[in-house]
């Protein structure tokens, strides 16, 4: 059976939802003829027509704003930011309007904003960011960041069906690197549920997105040294699946939070806080974080390599923590 890439998984998920529900439509830049900057929407114009695959001017705020407006009318818009970095141009519409509509006046805004994020592609300061933490600090939103093709497909489908606004981060470096066997039958993956990606005894790494693979590589290496590392893949970043995280940490007694986004103010802080409060009695060592350092994402390979967290950095910290 043919393996499905991460990018193809997202595409399939959207495609299936477009087939299933005539109210689902796409809005963004260069989605139609071009199939999107990363070709996620390739072929959709031919299949679904201009009515449901809307190429817009370069107007991120209007793309999101229009999606919200259409969602009030019963439609299910899937908006694309060409790069996650440009989501800051639509920030007000997302955090001040979409996130609050239900709360303020009981008006659901079931939109999905897709945002290809992440580094490792030499995109430099404007095409590599991981801006998820901003949105995790915005009640009313849901935030998703799948690591596997299986989850990418299952979660984009759930996101489209969800009745709340969802920010959906797709990691660019995984688009073509990750390949999996996907089920023939339809499936969805529930929002708000983390997954134990790999079981382990000695310590827990909580992570998501591309860093799941850095953790995996580290775990393989550590296993050879007899260190058994559990990996929790968050999948959904908001709401946080605290239960799964705490269960793992209570089991292993040691926690590392790992993300590609920069350290200060990143999601690692939130997770550490929850662990330090709610698993305090179970902790056998300091709660560690591994993240990119506090600077923009640099362009040149030696700088970007130094910037990005990787297996080596995880191994070092994990060893230290194991021996703590």
């Amino acid at each position, binding site marked *: 059976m043919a393996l499905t890439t991460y990018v193809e998984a997202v595409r399939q998920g959207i495609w299936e939802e477009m087939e299933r529900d005539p109210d689902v439509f796409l809005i963004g830049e260069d989605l139609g003829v071009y199939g999107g900057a990363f070709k996620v929407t390739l072929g959709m114009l031919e299949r679904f027509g201009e009515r449901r695959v809307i190429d817009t001017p370069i*107007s991120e705020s209007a793309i*999101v*704003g*229009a999606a919200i407006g259409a969602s009030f009318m019963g439609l299910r818009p899937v908006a694309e930011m060409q790069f996650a970095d440009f989501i800051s141009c639509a920030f007000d519409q997302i955090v*001040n309007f979409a996130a609050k509509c239900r709360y*303020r006046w009981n008006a659901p805004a079931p939109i999905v904003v897709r945002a290809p994020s992440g580094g490792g592609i030499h995109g430099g300061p404007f095409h590599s960011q991981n801006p998820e933490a901003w949105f995790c600090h915005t009640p009313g939103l849901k935030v998703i960041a799948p690591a596997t093709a299986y989850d990418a497909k299952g979660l984009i489908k759930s996101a489209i069906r969800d*009745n709340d606004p969802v920010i959906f981060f797709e990691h660019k470096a995984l688009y073509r690197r990750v390949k999996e066997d996907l089920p023939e039958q339809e499936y969805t993956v529930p929002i708000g549920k983390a997954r134990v990606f790999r079981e382990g005894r000695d310590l827990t790494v909580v992570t998501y997105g591309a860093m799941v693979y850095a953790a995996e590589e580290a775990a393989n290496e550590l296993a050879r040294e007899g260190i058994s590392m559990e990996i929790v893949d968050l999948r959904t970043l908001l709401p946080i699946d605290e239960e799964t995280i705490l269960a793992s940490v209570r089991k292993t007694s040691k926690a590392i939070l790992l993300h590609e986004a920069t350290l200060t103010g990143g999601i690692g802080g939130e997770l550490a806080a929850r662990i330090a409060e709610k698993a305090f009695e179970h902790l056998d060592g300091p709660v560690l974080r591994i993240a990119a350092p506090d600077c923009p994402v640099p362009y040149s390979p030696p700088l970007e390599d130094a910037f990005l967290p990787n297996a080596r950095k995880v191994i070092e910290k994990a060893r230290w923590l194991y021996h703590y």
Partner: protein
Amino acid sequence: MAAVKPMGFSAGLSFSEALDSEAGLARQALYYMQLMREVEERIERKLYRQGKIVGGVYVGRGQEAICVGAGLAAEPDDMLFPCHRDLALYFIRGVHPRQVFAQYMGRVGGLTRGKDGNMHMGDLRLRIVAIISAMAASVPVAAGAAMAQKYKGSRDVTMVFFGDGATSRGDWHEGINLASVQKAPLVLVCNNNHYAYSTPLDKQMACENVADRAPGYGIAAEIVDGNDVFAVHQAARRAVRHAREGRGPYLIECKTFRMTGHSAHDPGDYVPKHLWEEWAQKDPIDRVRRRMIEEGWAVESELDAISAGIRRDVDAAIEWAEASPFPDPSELLEHVYDPAPRSI
């Protein structure tokens, strides 16, 4: 065009006349304009000073012809996006004044049950989208609503209201441009009241009219006397027809003046006195009233009776609102998310 079915809060008022006759329009318009003025006066000049209003107060005094004239040109299925000086739109759609008072007082009887306040209210069932506080943020949202109307093949249109100040925002530009490229059925109603807060027009834009921007979007536009409810209404009808016919957005710039400070805490003393005086002569309510009497559409006593009816309704509405309880703190975390997600 079918007349909007109004609530007619005041028992004494009959809405049998169609909007298609000027006399009929005058009656309905006068009613809603007066109701708006009365409700806002109570809020601003009484309840606010009595400390009964929880937050800020922004009124549309002197500008009532705009939301009333335009609002009466929309059909019940059309979407409305009011701005902060368009209170009458709510009444036209059947919101009761008591709900508005309760809203301003933060009571559960308000449209948002105290979650949000003052004119920040909406109800999708009534096809009114709640104000978005960031000026002009509503324009792309309204563009999307209009795109959805087209998507669904309906004949409905969307009407979005904003001030001159909002036109400086990037969202205004992006929203109109997108709507125009998409030929979405969007009617844009600008209340150009010559000020954004304390900032006069010449510090906001270097063109003479907001409508001068329409050619840059390839959309139709016209400028009307915003204090003449008949003129506004006719322009709005043209605009609605244009949009309904699939010819894309239509901008109406209504020249008017804000007869108050920006909000209840602003005396507006940066406004040259002569402007207050000039514009006081053009009061849109006085004008309709005078015309109705001149044309013989009504006699003075009849109109006085309507005013009295409104005052009575408003008295009762305030009483109702004051009796409406504050929300219970247990409601604090309700409705942040869908409590019962669609089963998937």
